């Protein structure tokens, strides 16, 4: 039973993405296959060199880099969204796979869910 957790909200402005990450980590903790797909403005999650100290929040970069250790299968990012938000491979954190978010991609998963 493979699950794709989708994140289409940027970090810090809402808690939506953090709660999506918790869902994915929780699946992995119960040995359920889980991957993350970042689309739309959600791709900003994957930007290198975030510094959230000025807004009194934890940087999400560290959370995400722990994803493989926690057993998350893949961190996917929609290619066109990355282009739209000016993210090239060099500006992305490591371990991100660029994909085209389309129906064929979703078909590879039994479940697809947002956190909110």
């Amino acid at each position, binding site marked *: 039973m493979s699950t794709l957790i989708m994140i289409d909200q*940027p970090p810090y402005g809402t808690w939506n993405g953090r709660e999506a990450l918790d869902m994915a980590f929780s699946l992995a903790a119960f040995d359920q296959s889980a991957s993350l797909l970042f689309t739309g403005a959600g791709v900003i999650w994957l*930007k290198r060199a975030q*510094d959230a*100290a000025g807004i009194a929040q934890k940087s999400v970069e560290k959370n995400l880099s722990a994803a493989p250790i926690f057993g998350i299968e893949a961190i996917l990012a929609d290619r066109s969204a990355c282009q739209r938000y000016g993210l090239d491979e060099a500006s992305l954190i490591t371990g991100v796979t660029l994909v085209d978010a389309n129906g064929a991609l979703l078909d590879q998963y039994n479940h697809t869910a947002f956190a909110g």
Partner: protein
Amino acid sequence: MSSFNTLHILNKSPQHPRAAQCLALLSEGDALLLTENGVLLLCAGSLPAMGKVFALSPDVSARGIGNTIGDATLVEFGDMVALSLQAQRVISW
């Protein structure tokens, strides 16, 4: 610093419908202050042709997009207070 007619404060990412609405209503003599996810306008889409553009520095840093500020001016919260007083009125989108 000069005075503005309306200071528009935009805290929504470019994909949010209110962002487009805000940008469409900018007039000559207005200023735009990007906060929270609003700062993503700096790396996606284009800054408005008219009016001065400011972006709240801590929000730009949090999102790691300090290298794409273009013609926008980075400001701190103290400047946000000053800008809100320099403008004739403030609209929070």
